[in-house]
Protein backbone atom coordinates (compact mmCIF):
# COMPACT_ATOMS: atom_id res chain seq x y z
CA UNK A 1 0.00 0.00 0.00
CA UNK A 2 1.41 3.34 -0.94
CA UNK A 3 1.78 6.13 1.55
CA UNK A 4 -0.75 8.12 -0.39
CA UNK A 5 -3.41 5.39 -0.29
CA UNK A 6 -2.81 4.85 3.43
CA UNK A 7 -3.31 8.55 4.02
CA UNK A 8 -6.61 8.40 2.15
CA UNK A 9 -7.79 5.51 4.30
CA UNK A 10 -6.99 7.44 7.42
CA UNK A 11 -8.90 10.45 6.18
CA UNK A 12 -11.83 8.27 5.18
CA UNK A 13 -12.19 7.07 8.77
CA UNK A 14 -12.54 10.49 10.33
CA UNK A 15 -16.05 11.80 11.21
CA UNK A 16 -15.38 14.90 9.17
CA UNK A 17 -14.61 12.86 6.06
CA UNK A 18 -17.78 10.80 6.52
CA UNK A 19 -19.79 14.01 6.67
CA UNK A 20 -17.90 15.35 3.68
CA UNK A 21 -19.01 12.35 1.65
CA UNK A 22 -22.62 13.09 2.64
CA UNK A 23 -22.27 16.77 2.00
CA UNK A 24 -20.56 16.76 -1.35
CA UNK A 25 -18.54 19.57 -2.78
CA UNK A 26 -21.23 22.21 -3.21
CA UNK A 27 -22.52 22.49 0.35
CA UNK A 28 -21.95 25.57 2.46
CA UNK A 29 -21.16 25.26 6.15
CA UNK A 30 -23.09 27.43 8.64
CA UNK A 31 -22.23 27.57 12.31
CA UNK A 32 -25.58 28.20 13.98
CA UNK A 33 -25.59 31.98 14.09
CA UNK A 34 -25.89 32.38 10.33
CA UNK A 35 -29.12 32.98 8.47
CA UNK A 36 -30.07 32.10 4.96
CA UNK A 37 -31.50 35.20 3.33
CA UNK A 38 -33.06 36.02 -0.01
CA UNK A 39 -33.04 39.59 -1.26
CA UNK A 40 -35.26 40.60 -4.15
CA UNK A 41 -35.33 43.72 -6.35
CA UNK A 42 -38.67 43.62 -8.10
CA UNK A 43 -40.73 45.87 -10.37
CA UNK A 44 -43.56 43.50 -11.34
CA UNK A 45 -46.88 43.39 -9.56
CA UNK A 46 -48.32 40.37 -7.79
CA UNK A 47 -45.04 38.49 -7.41
CA UNK A 48 -44.46 35.98 -4.61
CA UNK A 49 -41.33 33.91 -4.12
CA UNK A 50 -40.51 30.79 -2.16
CA UNK A 51 -37.05 29.79 -1.01
CA UNK A 52 -36.78 26.12 -0.16
CA UNK A 53 -34.05 23.55 0.26
CA UNK A 54 -32.35 21.07 2.56
CA UNK A 55 -29.67 21.21 5.22
CA UNK A 56 -27.51 18.48 6.77
CA UNK A 57 -27.34 18.83 10.53
CA UNK A 58 -24.37 17.80 12.66
CA UNK A 59 -26.18 14.70 13.91
CA UNK A 60 -26.57 13.48 10.35
CA UNK A 61 -30.24 14.32 9.92
CA UNK A 62 -31.49 16.02 6.79
CA UNK A 63 -33.75 18.99 7.52
CA UNK A 64 -35.83 20.77 4.90
CA UNK A 65 -36.67 24.45 5.06
CA UNK A 66 -38.80 26.91 3.16
CA UNK A 67 -39.80 30.53 3.61
CA UNK A 68 -41.74 32.97 1.39
CA UNK A 69 -41.10 36.53 0.25
CA UNK A 70 -43.57 38.95 -1.30
CA UNK A 71 -41.34 41.71 -2.64
CA UNK A 72 -42.29 45.34 -3.09
CA UNK A 73 -42.78 46.58 -6.63
CA UNK A 74 -40.66 49.73 -6.47
CA UNK A 75 -37.36 48.06 -7.27
CA UNK A 76 -36.05 48.47 -3.74
CA UNK A 77 -34.56 45.58 -1.82
CA UNK A 78 -37.04 43.25 -0.09
CA UNK A 79 -35.71 40.57 2.22
CA UNK A 80 -36.75 37.37 3.98
CA UNK A 81 -34.57 35.04 5.98
CA UNK A 82 -34.50 31.85 7.97
CA UNK A 83 -32.21 30.88 10.86
CA UNK A 84 -30.06 27.87 10.06
CA UNK A 85 -28.93 25.22 12.57
CA UNK A 86 -25.26 24.30 12.61
CA UNK A 87 -24.46 22.14 9.63
CA UNK A 88 -24.37 22.38 5.85
CA UNK A 89 -26.76 23.99 3.41
CA UNK A 90 -27.06 21.24 0.82
CA UNK A 91 -29.24 23.03 -1.68
CA UNK A 92 -31.61 25.95 -2.02
CA UNK A 93 -33.90 27.08 -4.78
CA UNK A 94 -35.93 30.27 -5.23
CA UNK A 95 -39.05 29.86 -7.33
CA UNK A 96 -41.88 32.17 -8.38
CA UNK A 97 -45.10 31.04 -6.73
CA UNK A 98 -47.34 33.89 -7.88
CA UNK A 99 -47.24 36.53 -10.58
CA UNK A 100 -45.58 36.57 -13.98
CA UNK A 101 -42.36 38.52 -13.70
CA UNK A 102 -40.70 39.27 -16.99
CA UNK A 103 -37.10 38.55 -17.83
CA UNK A 104 -35.70 41.62 -16.13
CA UNK A 105 -38.24 42.58 -13.49
CA UNK A 106 -37.32 40.35 -10.54
CA UNK A 107 -33.73 39.94 -9.42
CA UNK A 108 -32.99 37.58 -6.53
CA UNK A 109 -29.94 36.95 -4.39
CA UNK A 110 -29.42 33.93 -2.13
CA UNK A 111 -27.16 35.00 0.71
CA UNK A 112 -25.75 33.84 4.00
CA UNK A 113 -25.89 36.63 6.55
CA UNK A 114 -24.55 36.69 10.05
CA UNK A 115 -26.39 37.85 13.16
CA UNK A 116 -29.50 39.47 11.86
CA UNK A 117 -31.33 40.19 8.66
CA UNK A 118 -29.15 42.09 6.27
CA UNK A 119 -26.61 42.91 8.95
CA UNK A 120 -23.53 41.30 7.50
CA UNK A 121 -23.47 39.31 4.32
CA UNK A 122 -20.82 36.61 4.56
CA UNK A 123 -21.57 34.71 1.36
CA UNK A 124 -23.45 35.15 -1.89
CA UNK A 125 -24.52 31.68 -2.92
CA UNK A 126 -26.34 32.61 -6.12
CA UNK A 127 -28.08 35.49 -7.84
CA UNK A 128 -30.04 36.14 -10.98
CA UNK A 129 -33.40 37.02 -12.51
CA UNK A 130 -36.33 34.71 -11.92
CA UNK A 131 -39.50 34.18 -13.93
CA UNK A 132 -42.35 31.72 -13.73
CA UNK A 133 -40.14 29.34 -15.72
CA UNK A 134 -36.72 30.20 -14.35
CA UNK A 135 -35.62 29.50 -10.80
CA UNK A 136 -32.26 30.26 -9.28
CA UNK A 137 -30.63 27.52 -7.29
CA UNK A 138 -27.68 26.67 -5.11
CA UNK A 139 -25.46 24.91 -5.90
CA UNK A 140 -25.37 25.11 -9.64
CA UNK A 141 -25.61 27.37 -12.60
CA UNK A 142 -28.43 29.77 -13.28
CA UNK A 143 -31.53 28.15 -14.66
CA UNK A 144 -32.59 28.86 -18.19
CA UNK A 145 -35.80 28.79 -20.12
CA UNK A 146 -36.68 28.44 -23.74
CA UNK A 147 -37.27 31.85 -25.22
CA UNK A 148 -35.40 33.65 -22.48
CA UNK A 149 -33.31 36.68 -23.35
CA UNK A 150 -31.54 39.51 -21.62
CA UNK A 151 -34.13 42.09 -22.58
CA UNK A 152 -37.86 42.43 -22.61
CA UNK A 153 -40.31 44.18 -24.90
CA UNK A 154 -42.46 46.82 -23.21
CA UNK A 155 -45.40 48.82 -24.43
CA UNK A 156 -45.63 51.87 -22.21
CA UNK A 157 -48.62 54.15 -21.94
CA UNK A 158 -47.00 57.43 -20.96
CA UNK A 159 -48.18 60.20 -18.71
CA UNK A 160 -51.06 62.23 -20.12
CA UNK A 161 -49.69 65.74 -19.62
CA UNK A 162 -51.65 68.79 -18.62
CA UNK A 163 -52.65 71.38 -21.21
CA UNK A 164 -49.69 73.27 -22.57
CA UNK A 165 -47.25 70.74 -21.14
CA UNK A 166 -44.87 68.59 -23.15
CA UNK A 167 -44.50 64.83 -22.95
CA UNK A 168 -41.42 63.63 -21.14
CA UNK A 169 -40.27 60.15 -20.21
CA UNK A 170 -37.12 59.16 -18.36
CA UNK A 171 -35.38 55.80 -18.72
CA UNK A 172 -35.70 54.09 -15.31
CA UNK A 173 -32.73 53.55 -13.05
CA UNK A 174 -30.76 50.43 -13.87
CA UNK A 175 -32.20 49.96 -17.34
CA UNK A 176 -31.42 50.74 -20.96
CA UNK A 177 -34.09 51.45 -23.55
CA UNK A 178 -33.94 50.83 -27.25
CA UNK A 179 -36.70 52.98 -28.71
CA UNK A 180 -38.72 51.06 -31.25
CA UNK A 181 -41.77 53.30 -31.77
CA UNK A 182 -43.35 56.45 -30.33
CA UNK A 183 -46.77 57.92 -31.00
CA UNK A 184 -48.89 60.79 -29.64
CA UNK A 185 -51.57 63.25 -30.72
CA UNK A 186 -51.33 67.04 -30.62
CA UNK A 187 -54.56 69.02 -30.50
CA UNK A 188 -54.24 72.76 -31.07
CA UNK A 189 -56.56 75.20 -29.33
CA UNK A 190 -58.21 78.19 -30.97
CA UNK A 191 -55.20 80.50 -30.68
CA UNK A 192 -53.67 81.24 -34.06
CA UNK A 193 -50.22 79.87 -34.67
CA UNK A 194 -48.26 77.24 -36.57
CA UNK A 195 -47.33 74.47 -34.14
CA UNK A 196 -44.48 72.18 -35.03
CA UNK A 197 -44.12 68.91 -33.16
CA UNK A 198 -40.55 67.90 -32.45
CA UNK A 199 -39.45 64.68 -30.76
CA UNK A 200 -36.17 64.76 -28.87
CA UNK A 201 -33.89 62.25 -27.25
CA UNK A 202 -31.60 63.69 -24.58
CA UNK A 203 -28.98 62.32 -22.27
CA UNK A 204 -29.20 62.76 -18.51
CA UNK A 205 -27.51 66.17 -18.81
CA UNK A 206 -30.10 67.37 -21.35
CA UNK A 207 -27.73 67.22 -24.30
CA UNK A 208 -29.77 66.55 -27.42
CA UNK A 209 -28.82 63.25 -29.04
CA UNK A 210 -31.37 63.38 -31.81
CA UNK A 211 -34.43 65.38 -32.75
CA UNK A 212 -36.87 65.25 -35.58
CA UNK A 213 -39.69 67.59 -36.54
CA UNK A 214 -42.63 67.08 -38.84
CA UNK A 215 -42.66 68.42 -42.38
CA UNK A 216 -45.81 70.42 -41.80
CA UNK A 217 -47.21 72.62 -39.09
CA UNK A 218 -50.46 72.34 -37.20
CA UNK A 219 -52.82 75.30 -37.14
CA UNK A 220 -55.49 76.31 -34.64
CA UNK A 221 -58.41 74.00 -33.88
CA UNK A 222 -56.81 70.99 -35.52
CA UNK A 223 -55.46 67.68 -34.30
CA UNK A 224 -52.67 65.55 -35.69
CA UNK A 225 -51.25 62.14 -34.82
CA UNK A 226 -47.47 61.86 -34.88
CA UNK A 227 -45.80 58.44 -35.03
CA UNK A 228 -42.13 57.59 -35.05
CA UNK A 229 -40.44 54.30 -35.83
CA UNK A 230 -37.33 52.65 -37.09
CA UNK A 231 -37.03 51.73 -40.76
CA UNK A 232 -39.65 54.20 -41.93
CA UNK A 233 -39.53 57.52 -43.72
CA UNK A 234 -41.26 60.84 -43.26
CA UNK A 235 -44.73 60.75 -44.73
CA UNK A 236 -48.05 62.43 -44.01
CA UNK A 237 -51.13 60.46 -44.92
CA UNK A 238 -53.52 61.56 -47.61
CA UNK A 239 -56.07 62.91 -45.13
CA UNK A 240 -53.39 65.07 -43.58
CA UNK A 241 -54.19 64.01 -40.02
CA UNK A 242 -51.22 61.79 -39.24
CA UNK A 243 -47.52 61.66 -39.98
CA UNK A 244 -44.92 58.95 -39.62
CA UNK A 245 -41.28 59.89 -39.09
CA UNK A 246 -38.03 57.97 -38.82
CA UNK A 247 -35.96 57.57 -35.70
CA UNK A 248 -32.56 55.91 -35.64
CA UNK A 249 -31.57 52.80 -33.75
CA UNK A 250 -31.00 54.62 -30.52
CA UNK A 251 -30.15 53.18 -27.12
CA UNK A 252 -30.74 55.32 -24.09
CA UNK A 253 -29.09 54.55 -20.74
CA UNK A 254 -30.78 55.20 -17.38
CA UNK A 255 -31.63 58.85 -16.82
CA UNK A 256 -31.90 59.68 -20.51
CA UNK A 257 -35.06 61.38 -21.66
CA UNK A 258 -37.48 61.28 -24.53
CA UNK A 259 -39.49 64.49 -24.81
CA UNK A 260 -41.63 66.50 -27.15
CA UNK A 261 -40.82 70.10 -27.90
CA UNK A 262 -43.76 71.85 -29.52
CA UNK A 263 -42.82 75.03 -31.33
CA UNK A 264 -45.39 77.85 -30.99
CA UNK A 265 -46.95 75.86 -28.18
CA UNK A 266 -50.03 77.48 -26.65
CA UNK A 267 -51.23 77.06 -23.09
CA UNK A 268 -54.45 75.45 -24.33
CA UNK A 269 -52.81 72.95 -26.66
CA UNK A 270 -53.08 69.36 -25.51
CA UNK A 271 -50.88 66.34 -26.11
CA UNK A 272 -52.76 63.06 -25.70
CA UNK A 273 -52.44 59.28 -26.02
CA UNK A 274 -48.67 59.01 -25.60
CA UNK A 275 -47.55 55.42 -26.16
CA UNK A 276 -44.15 53.85 -26.73
CA UNK A 277 -42.68 50.52 -27.68
CA UNK A 278 -39.27 49.96 -26.15
CA UNK A 279 -36.87 47.09 -25.67
CA UNK A 280 -35.81 47.27 -22.03
CA UNK A 281 -32.55 45.79 -20.83
Amino acid sequence: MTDQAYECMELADTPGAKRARLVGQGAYYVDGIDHLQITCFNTATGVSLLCSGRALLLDGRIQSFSFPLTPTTNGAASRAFSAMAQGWILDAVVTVTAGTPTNLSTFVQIQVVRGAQGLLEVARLQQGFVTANIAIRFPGELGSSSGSSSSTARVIVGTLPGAGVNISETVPAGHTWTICAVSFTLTADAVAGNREAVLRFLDSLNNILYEIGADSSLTANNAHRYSYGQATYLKTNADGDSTVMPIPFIRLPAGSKMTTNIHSFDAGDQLTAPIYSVQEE
Partner: protein
Amino acid sequence: MPARFCLSCGGRYHTTDANGMAYYHTCPDHTIVSVTRGALKLDVELHAVQPGDVIVSQRNAPRANARDENVQADGKTKGQPIAAGAGVLEAPDAATLAAAVAASPAAALAVTQGAPAPAPTPVGPIGVAFS
Protein backbone atom coordinates in the same frame (compact mmCIF):
# COMPACT_ATOMS: atom_id res chain seq x y z
CA MET B 1 -55.18 49.53 -12.24
CA PRO B 2 -54.03 52.31 -9.85
CA ALA B 3 -54.04 55.75 -11.42
CA ARG B 4 -52.27 58.89 -10.28
CA PHE B 5 -52.51 62.61 -10.82
CA CYS B 6 -49.27 64.55 -10.39
CA LEU B 7 -49.76 67.72 -8.37
CA SER B 8 -46.53 69.16 -9.78
CA CYS B 9 -47.27 68.98 -13.50
CA GLY B 10 -50.93 67.93 -13.84
CA GLY B 11 -50.04 64.69 -15.60
CA ARG B 12 -52.18 61.57 -15.29
CA TYR B 13 -50.75 58.07 -15.44
CA HIS B 14 -51.01 54.48 -14.26
CA THR B 15 -48.39 53.10 -11.93
CA THR B 16 -48.14 49.82 -13.83
CA ASP B 17 -48.27 48.92 -17.50
CA ALA B 18 -50.74 46.47 -18.93
CA ASN B 19 -48.03 43.80 -18.70
CA GLY B 20 -47.63 44.42 -14.97
CA MET B 21 -44.35 46.29 -15.06
CA ALA B 22 -43.86 49.41 -13.00
CA TYR B 23 -44.10 52.84 -14.62
CA TYR B 24 -42.08 55.70 -13.17
CA HIS B 25 -43.47 59.16 -13.79
CA THR B 26 -41.21 62.15 -14.23
CA CYS B 27 -42.43 65.70 -14.71
CA PRO B 28 -41.69 67.35 -18.04
CA ASP B 29 -39.95 70.69 -18.26
CA HIS B 30 -41.80 73.99 -18.23
CA THR B 31 -42.15 75.89 -21.44
CA ILE B 32 -40.78 79.40 -20.90
CA VAL B 33 -41.80 82.09 -23.34
CA SER B 34 -39.97 85.34 -23.93
CA VAL B 35 -42.49 88.07 -24.70
CA THR B 36 -42.67 91.80 -25.09
CA ARG B 37 -45.40 93.28 -22.95
CA GLY B 38 -45.69 97.02 -23.33
CA ALA B 39 -42.25 98.44 -22.62
CA LEU B 40 -40.95 95.31 -21.00
CA LYS B 41 -39.39 92.13 -22.16
CA LEU B 42 -40.44 89.26 -19.94
CA ASP B 43 -39.73 85.57 -19.52
CA VAL B 44 -43.02 83.98 -18.48
CA GLU B 45 -44.36 80.48 -18.25
CA LEU B 46 -46.52 79.45 -21.17
CA HIS B 47 -49.77 79.56 -19.21
CA ALA B 48 -49.02 83.12 -18.11
CA VAL B 49 -48.92 84.61 -21.59
CA GLN B 50 -51.46 87.43 -21.75
CA PRO B 51 -53.49 88.79 -24.65
CA GLY B 52 -51.39 91.43 -26.35
CA ASP B 53 -48.07 89.80 -25.47
CA VAL B 54 -45.78 89.46 -28.44
CA ILE B 55 -43.98 86.13 -28.31
CA VAL B 56 -40.35 86.41 -29.25
CA SER B 57 -39.09 82.93 -28.50
CA GLN B 58 -39.74 79.89 -26.35
CA ARG B 59 -37.57 77.37 -24.61
CA ASN B 60 -37.87 74.58 -22.09
CA ALA B 61 -36.57 74.79 -18.54
CA PRO B 62 -36.59 72.41 -15.59
CA ARG B 63 -39.79 72.59 -13.58
CA ALA B 64 -39.55 73.82 -10.01
CA ASN B 65 -40.61 71.11 -7.55
CA ALA B 66 -40.67 68.45 -10.28
CA ARG B 67 -41.59 64.90 -9.32
CA ASP B 68 -39.33 62.02 -10.35
CA GLU B 69 -40.57 58.59 -9.29
CA ASN B 70 -37.45 56.79 -10.42
CA VAL B 71 -35.87 55.01 -7.51
CA GLN B 72 -32.58 56.14 -6.08
CA ALA B 73 -29.96 53.62 -7.11
CA ASP B 74 -27.49 54.43 -4.34
CA GLY B 75 -28.54 51.52 -2.14
CA LYS B 76 -29.16 53.78 0.84
CA THR B 77 -32.56 55.36 0.39
CA LYS B 78 -34.69 52.22 0.41
CA GLY B 79 -36.52 52.81 -2.83
CA GLN B 80 -37.67 56.35 -2.23
CA PRO B 81 -38.45 58.44 -5.33
CA ILE B 82 -35.67 60.73 -6.44
CA ALA B 83 -38.00 63.68 -5.93
CA ALA B 84 -41.50 63.69 -4.47
CA GLY B 85 -42.46 67.05 -5.97
CA ALA B 86 -45.83 68.40 -4.85
CA GLY B 87 -47.17 64.89 -4.37
CA VAL B 88 -49.91 62.96 -6.14
CA LEU B 89 -53.55 62.09 -5.92
CA GLU B 90 -54.02 58.33 -6.23
CA ALA B 91 -57.09 56.23 -6.89
CA PRO B 92 -57.73 52.58 -7.75
CA ASP B 93 -58.91 53.47 -11.25
CA ALA B 94 -59.05 56.37 -13.69
CA ALA B 95 -62.74 57.15 -13.08
CA THR B 96 -62.28 57.45 -9.31
CA LEU B 97 -59.20 59.54 -9.89
CA ALA B 98 -61.12 61.93 -12.15
CA ALA B 99 -63.61 62.56 -9.35
CA ALA B 100 -60.82 63.16 -6.86
CA VAL B 101 -59.10 65.58 -9.22
CA ALA B 102 -62.32 67.49 -9.79
CA ALA B 103 -62.73 67.94 -6.03
CA SER B 104 -59.15 69.00 -5.32
CA PRO B 105 -58.09 72.67 -5.33
CA ALA B 106 -54.46 71.60 -5.56
CA ALA B 107 -55.25 69.56 -8.63
CA ALA B 108 -57.09 72.49 -10.17
CA LEU B 109 -53.97 74.58 -9.68
CA ALA B 110 -51.83 71.92 -11.26
CA VAL B 111 -54.17 71.63 -14.23
CA THR B 112 -54.14 75.34 -14.95
CA GLN B 113 -50.54 76.16 -14.29
CA GLY B 114 -48.57 73.24 -12.91
CA ALA B 115 -46.60 73.82 -9.74
CA PRO B 116 -46.89 77.26 -8.14
CA ALA B 117 -45.42 79.61 -10.66
CA PRO B 118 -42.97 82.40 -9.97
CA ALA B 119 -43.88 85.93 -10.93
CA PRO B 120 -42.88 86.97 -14.46
CA THR B 121 -39.23 87.88 -14.60
CA PRO B 122 -38.42 91.23 -16.25
CA VAL B 123 -35.34 90.66 -18.31
CA GLY B 124 -34.84 94.18 -19.62
CA PRO B 125 -36.38 97.01 -21.53
CA ILE B 126 -37.02 96.74 -25.22
CA GLY B 127 -33.86 97.15 -27.18
CA VAL B 128 -31.68 95.28 -24.72
CA ALA B 129 -30.65 91.83 -25.84
CA PHE B 130 -31.76 88.94 -23.69
CA SER B 131 -31.65 85.22 -24.04
